[in-house]
Each structure stands twice: as C-alpha cells, then as structure tokens.
C-alpha cells in the first residue's frame, strides 16, 4: 500500500485549541449545483490537516471558503457556518480583508507578482500600511528564512521574482503568505507543479511552519498527505467521507470508500 507510513513524522502539537477552525453543518452551492454537502468538523490549532480526495470532490472548494476566496465567484450560496476562534467568518460586521489577513493562502500554481523578490515578500505589510523600511526589511528576512529561501536569494532581493525557479517561486509565495504572520495557512496543492526535490523542500518547510501556524493543505498525493499531515479529511463527491488522524486514515480507514481511494482502486 502506501510507503508513507515508514516516513517519520513529528508528533502533533495538541496543546492548542482543538476547535480552532470549526465547520458546522456547512454546505455550499455554485448557483444551483450543490458543491458541498452539509459537513461538520473541527481543525485544531497548530496542526496540519490534509484534504484528500479525487478531482471535483470539493476539497478545494472548502479550502477556498476558509478565507472566502469563493466570494469572487458569481452566484454562490452557503448554509451552516464556519468559525475561526469562535467567530463566524460570515459575520456581517467582519471585513473580508481582515479575515484574509488572518488566513493566508498559497495557491496551486505559484503566482509571484511581477515585482522584485523583496516587494513580493513585503506586499501584505505594504497593503496594511507598513512603510517603515526597518520593519519591512526584518519581516522580509524572517519570512524568507522561515520559507528556507533566504540563503538562495539574499543577494538578489531586488531582482524580479519571475526570474526564480519553480520551487523557489512557490517558497517565495509561502514567504509572502506568512510575512504578515497570519494564524492559518491554506495550501491548495502547493507541490503539484514541482519536481520531487522542490516538493521535498516544501514538505520540510510545512513541518517547520506548523509550530506557528495552523495549516490546511489540499493534496492529490496521498504520500504527501501521509508525510506532512496530522489529520486527514477524505472527500468524495462533495461529501466528507472520513476525518481522523492521518495514521488512522492510512492504517485503518473506517470507511470502505476511503480504503478504496488510498489503496489506489479509484480516484
């Protein structure tokens, strides 16, 4: 079956709030099409949760609802609620911009802005109105160090970010997402366009980052889910089939569909 279980994985930090992100009876529609069936589960603080499932199962849709990126799509509607630290993200008094500052996101395809590496990293701070050069410099270095990119780019911070390699660009996007120190980091198949070496670096990075951030990662690679996550949620046709510790999902899945998927019989 999967050789992921032989990979060593750091122990999950269980000291944080267990219902850091709380999804309650949440369902979601694109127009008339129901994309997510009503589901309820909690994501604990400072743990890595992987969403797995075949294409079109709704895992990305759920991820994009956590920072309300789906608001950009026309004709959406939802039921139930998602709360972060007990506050509903649909609260009319809550600015969506402040939600997104709290919940950072890394996309499937790296999308650095056509600006310098430096300006990419400090972008979130700049839009928050920080213009103090010392603060920006420090944030830039810290973020790049956290994203394990500092040593590679420290001499060319003013070069165009588009001159970096694919793996470096994705790490730059991670550095950019953590520069304003969000609480949650959403990763939408961050390694799908990368080679194994770059993938390895990103996975190491996720291990590092989870000491500070709550990470939700969508992935097509079950090995990756097994390697990086503490908990795994399996989706199928818009339904949450199973959600449990990663070990339980991969060693002893509770549902036949999960078993079939992780053993590679479909999907």
């Amino acid at each position, binding site marked *: 079956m999967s050789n992921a279980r032989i990979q060593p994985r750091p122990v999950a930090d269980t000291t944080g709030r267990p219902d850091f992100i709380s999804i309650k009876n949440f369902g979601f529609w694109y127009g008339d099409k129901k994309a997510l069936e009503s589901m309820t589960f909690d994501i604990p603080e400072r743990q890595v949760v992987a969403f797995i499932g075949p294409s079109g199962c709704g895992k990305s849709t759920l991820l994009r609802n956590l920072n309300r990126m789906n608001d950009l799509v026309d004709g959406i509607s939802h039921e139930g609620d998602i709360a972060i630290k007990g506050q509903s993200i649909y609260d009319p008094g809550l600015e969506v*911009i402040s939600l997104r500052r709290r919940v950072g996101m890394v996309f499937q395809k790296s*999308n650095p802005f056509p600006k310098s590496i430096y300006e990419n990293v400090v972008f979130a701070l700049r839009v928050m109105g920080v213009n103090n050069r010392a603060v920006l410099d420090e944030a830039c270095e810290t973020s790049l160090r956290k994203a394990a990119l500092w040593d590679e780019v420290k001499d060319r911070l003013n070069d165009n970010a588009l001159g970096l390699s694919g793996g470096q660009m994705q790490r730059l996007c991670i550095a950019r997402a953590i520069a304003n120190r969000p609480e949650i980091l959403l990763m939408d198949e961050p390694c799908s366009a990368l080679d194994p070496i770059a993938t390895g670096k990103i996975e190491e990075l996720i291990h590092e980052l989870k000491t500070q951030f709550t990470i939700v990662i969508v992935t097509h690679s079950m090995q990756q889910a097994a390697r990086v996550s503490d908990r795994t949620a399996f989706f199928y046709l818009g339904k949450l089939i199973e959600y449990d510790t990663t070990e339980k999902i991969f060693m002893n899945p509770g549902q036949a569909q999960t078993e079939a998927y992780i053993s590679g019989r479909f999907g």
Partner: protein
Amino acid sequence: MEENQSKSTEQLSESRFQVSRSTLLIDSWMGRIIRLGGISVVVAVFGMLGFLVSQIFPLFSKAKVEPLTLVDFTQASSVAWGEDEYGELPFSCDTKGNITFRKAKDGSLVKTWTADFKTTPITLEGQTTPAVSIPVTAIKTYPRDGLVLLGLADGSVRELKISYKITFAKNGIRELEPTVDLQYAGKIGELNGPILEAWSVKGPEGKLYLSRQQKDGHDVITGRRLVERKGLSGKAKVTVSEPFPIAADVTDLERVLVPSTADSILVIRKTGEVRVYDNSENTFSLMQSFKPFGEAKNQTIAAAGFIFGNVSVVFQGNQNEEVVWSLYPQKQADGQLLRRWGKIHDCETLAGVGQGIFPAAGNKCYLSVAGGRMQIRNMTNESIRWEGAAPASPIQQVVFSRNYNRFSVLCEDGKLYRWSITDHHPEASWSTFFGKIWYEGAEAPDYTWQSSSGSDEFEAKYSLVPLIYGTVKGTFYALLFAIPIALLAAIYVSHFLRPEWKNVIKPLMEIMASLPSVVLGFLAGLWLAPLVDTHLIPILCVIAILAPSALLAGYVWSKLPQPVRRRVGAGWEFAYLFPFIVLCAYGAWQMGPLIESTFFTVKDLASGQNISDFREWWRQSTGLSYDARNSLVVGFVMGFAVIPIVFTIAEDALSNVPNSLISGSLALGASRWQTVWTVVVPTAISGILSAIMIGFGRAVGETMIVVMATGNTAVMEANPFNGMRTLSANIAVELPEAAAGETHFRALFLGACCLFALTFIVNTFAEILRQRLRERFKMN
C-alpha cells in the same frame, strides 16, 4: 474473396497517410498569397514615405544656373540694356544713346537706332543759328518696362519706349520687330547744365521724373510730376507740375535710390549716411537718416539696391558687409508706433569690395557682385541660391527676367552674358520652415504661417512651427481630458463593475469609437462652442467639482457601517455614487453665476458699467485673447473621440491580467483598490501605454474636429481660451488651394512629413518604454 479483402485493407491503410494534392496546392498557394500581402503592405508604406519625400525634396535644392549664348554688342561703351519678354531680342544702349538690337540666338544685328537730338533752330535778327546736336549725358533703362531714359547736356530728358511687334511667319515661327518711339521730351529742372542722372518712375499719383544736375559744384536733385486725369469724356488730361527740389540739404552725394513706387527716395552720401526722403504732399521731406553698417562706423556704401516690393534695401560695403534694411513699425521715443527703416538682416557675404546689388523680379532674391564672384541670395531667409564667377569685365547692369528663369549681365566691353536659372522654390529653406524669420514689415523675427493673400507683392510665410505647436497643443488638451477618464473608466469596468454591465458598456464604447469625427466636429463648432462660450464658469465649476465629489462620496461610504455597505452588492456601488455626483454637479452648475459675479466682475469698456463676465475679465486681466472656439472645446470633443479607443485597449490590457495574481493579492489581505493599483495596473502598464499611444496618434492626426472647432488661427500661445491651427487641419484646408508643384503645395507635404515624424518619434519612444516595462513586468 479473402485475398481481395486483405488487398482492400492494405490499400485503405496506405491511402490513409496520403495527403490530397488539393490540400498541398491550397497550402502552398495560400502561403504565397499571404507573403504577397505582407510584402505589399511594406511596399505601400515605403511607397507612401517615398512619395512624401519626393514631394518635399525639391524644396531644399539650390538654384541651377546654366550659361546661355553670349551676345556681343561690339559697342565698347555699352552702359545699359534691356530685352523683350521672351529674351529673344536684347538691346544695348551706349554712352551716346545709340540703341542696338541683336538676336540672342546668334548675336546677329537686327536694328540700330541712332540718337540724334538737335536744338531747335533759332532765327534771331535774320541770322539763323543752325540746329546743333545735343549730346546724351545720362542713360537709364527700365528693362522690364521697355523704357530708356536719356538725359541730355541741355538739362532736358528724352524718354523712349521700346516696343516689340510680334508677327508669326507662315511656318509658325515668332518674329519680333522692335520699334523705338519718343514718349516724353522735356525739362525737369530749371538748370541748363547737363543731366548727370535721370529717373522715371510710376507712382500711384502718376509719373515722376527726377534728375541730378550740378550747380556750383553741388548736386541738385529736381523732381517733376506728370499727373494724368481722365475726364468724363474719356479724354486724358496731363498736368505737369512745377519742378521741386529734393534733398537740397545734401552734400557729398554718392548715389540716389528711387523705388519704382516713387513714395520715397533714398539719398546715399559719401560718408555712408543714408537719408530717406518721404513723399509728402507735392514734395519730398526728410523722414530719417541712418548708417546701415552701424552709427559708429564711417563705412562708405559700395552698392545698394531696392528689393522687389520696394520696402527693403540691400547695402553692400567695402569690407565684406552686406546688410538689409527695411521699413517696419518701430516704437518711437514718444511711444508712437511709426514705420521707420531698420536693419533686419546681416548676411555673410562675398569677400571683396561690393560691386553691385541687382534685385530679381517677382521674388525677394537679389544678385550681389563682389571680388569677382556673383551670388544669388534670398533676402528673407538669407539662403544662398547660387554662387559663381563673375565676368572679367566690369559689370554695368544685371537684369532678371520677369519670371525669374533667366538673368543677363551686361559688361563694359559690350558683351551680354546670359544665364538660365532654374530655382522653383527660392523662398524655401530650413529656416523658412523651422526658424524665426524677420519678414518685411514685421516688428521682429517670428514664426509665421501665412500662405496666401490678396496682393501679388505679398510674400508667403511658411513657418511650420506654429502648426506643430498647434498640433501639440490640441493633442495635449484632448489627452488631458481623455486619458484620465478613459483609464479610470477602463479600471472601473474591468475590475469593479459587474460583468453583466461590462458586457453592455464595452460594445457601447466601441460604437462610440465609430462615430464619424465630422459629426463630432459639427457638434463642437455649432453646439458645444456657443454653449461653453455662454456658460463657461458653470462648466468649469462642474469639472472642478467632479473629482472632489467622488472623493467625498468615497469618504462618506467608508464611514457607513459595514452591514449597510454589504446591502449594496459588490459592483453596484455606482448606484450610490452616481446620484451623489449628479447632485454635486448640479449644485456647482447653479453656483456658477454666483462665482462669476463674485470673482470675475470687470468694467465693461464699451458701456463703462460693471459686468460679471469671465471672458471680459480674462481679456482685461491677462491681456490674452478669448475666442469662442478655443482649446477647451477642442479638448472636450477631441477627447470624446479619443476616449473610446483608449478605453477599449486599456480595458483589454487590464482584463488580461491573470486571475492568479488578483487572487494572490486578495488572499494577502489587499483591498480591491490596492490589488488594482499595486498589482493589476503595473502588470498591464505596457498595454495601457499602448492605449495612450494609440489615443495620441488619433488626436495628432485628427482633422475634421480641429478644422471645425479650432478657428484655424496659426497662433503660438499656451492660452487655453484661444484656438490653434494643426498640421492636419492645415493640409485639409489649404491643399485644395495650392497649385501642384509650387512651394505652398510642397510646404503642405512637408507639414505631412512633420506629422508623420511627430507620431513616429513619439511612438518609437513609447515602444521602447513599453518593451522595457514589459521586460520588467513580464508574466511567465
């Protein structure tokens, strides 16, 4: 059967891979046709450029001068000459007044006319004094008028009219038969001494005869008028005035210049002083005296001559000086503006002592002789048209033909050297088109475009600078109005407006782009210009209030509680903004008259009453002009023509920014505006620049709107409340009136070339900038 089947499968499988002949044929032919199309586009562009250059090239060529046959009059003492209209039968006049006609073609003698003027025999006390011949002492020819004026030793003059009778022989060859008729005989002054010099000019009031004689070692100039008045019966009655002295106060007289208009006389003294006597009443009185080479210098004047038009004189000195003085309005000490002589050109000249200045007919060129060289120069732009060696023998007289295609030099040895001259554009030079030129009658050098006038003596002025200025000014005001509106609209439509609205607005803007500019020009000239003229302050108030009211609306919006704002869906904010702005604009419109009466009240010069009128206030307080068809109107309407194309292209560029960048920015907690301003606009900047460039190109080349809405005055003022004349409008207005091949026609083509160069330079610069920006913000 089985065999057959297998064969057919084999055949099928083979033919599957075969390409039909027609596919290949069409492919190769289409390739050729497309290549042909591409090449013909390139050829067409270069052909057009080549045509433009071929049209303007002759403007910058020098005169071509080629020698014609030499006519030897074999009269050693020839002093003056003249010729017929065709230059076929020149004549010379020797010191005795004898006239010889010779054929220009072969120099053969046609006719001689011997001067023989006798005194009338007087019978006194039965003794008859026989008639004695009176020697000729002064000779002057007016070749273009066919006049020969002879001054005699007894103080009288004889004016001879040379006419040519044209007959056509049976074989169609033109034959000329010269006749010499005595036209006037009489005395000018009361002195009986020999006439040293005589002039005959035709002024507006009639003929004026002048003579120079000596009395007690002094030069005496005397004038006499012949005024011809036609009575009702048609009978002409000639009145001869009493002789009157001219410049009686002058000593050391060197030479006298008499313009053919007879309105003033220039007397040059040996000291280098020029005294101008102006025609007033029936005599001439001193108007001005000056030293052409500078008051300090006691520089004698070697030669001088009136230029065609009789308001400018070229003076030649002994030490390589050549200056042009002209009559133009000058401010006097008492503040009055009077026409006085002043120096307008200081030319580099031939080395050596000046030997003569001979004007051309019909244009401002003249031939100057010095140090054995001859030079034809255009007085106005100082350009040298031609230079060559002068004949060895001293030059007596140089005459240009009426249409400036020939000039001939009569030398003392009786030889007439003839040249043909090909110079179609003597008035054209770089400085004519692009430099400041001091035209006759102007107060200072200036850039002037004035291509035609009612008068024949008018000198056309072809400075393209005011037109280039007008083009840039019109474009500037149009872009000032269009670019902010078009770009903000493009940003709004591409990133803030709901898609269903966008799908309506974009095609609507494209329809707006197809509105014929003649319709816009018509609206500008006949509807908008009068509206702006009468409601200027309210309109300016509305423009001024738009941006602040939008900002105020935004501020109020940001202070509204979040639940209220959420009720207005994303992309529907304009429903709130629009009434707000309309209300503000209406308020500003209503405030207009109040503002005008508060700030712009002036005393009306006509009625002496206080009126509140911005236009009058502008004229009085700035001293600048105010026209109804002004830059503001052009800016509005040309801006209206430019907005749609700039909008369309910029909107495309902004919409094409990848969504991944926008989501990336939004996910980092940037607001929509921050996303647009910091991510979308920089990424789309090269496309936006293209949009601006295309808008610029449209505004620069726009013709109908500017023809109809600018007033077409070629002025150079940054004043927003007057009009302009643009290069394109100039071509549209004047090309129908310009004769093909003449300077005016070619100057218009030069304007077209400038227009081309203007867009070419700006577009090249913008393209380089665009490439750089694209490199900087390129997307992988």
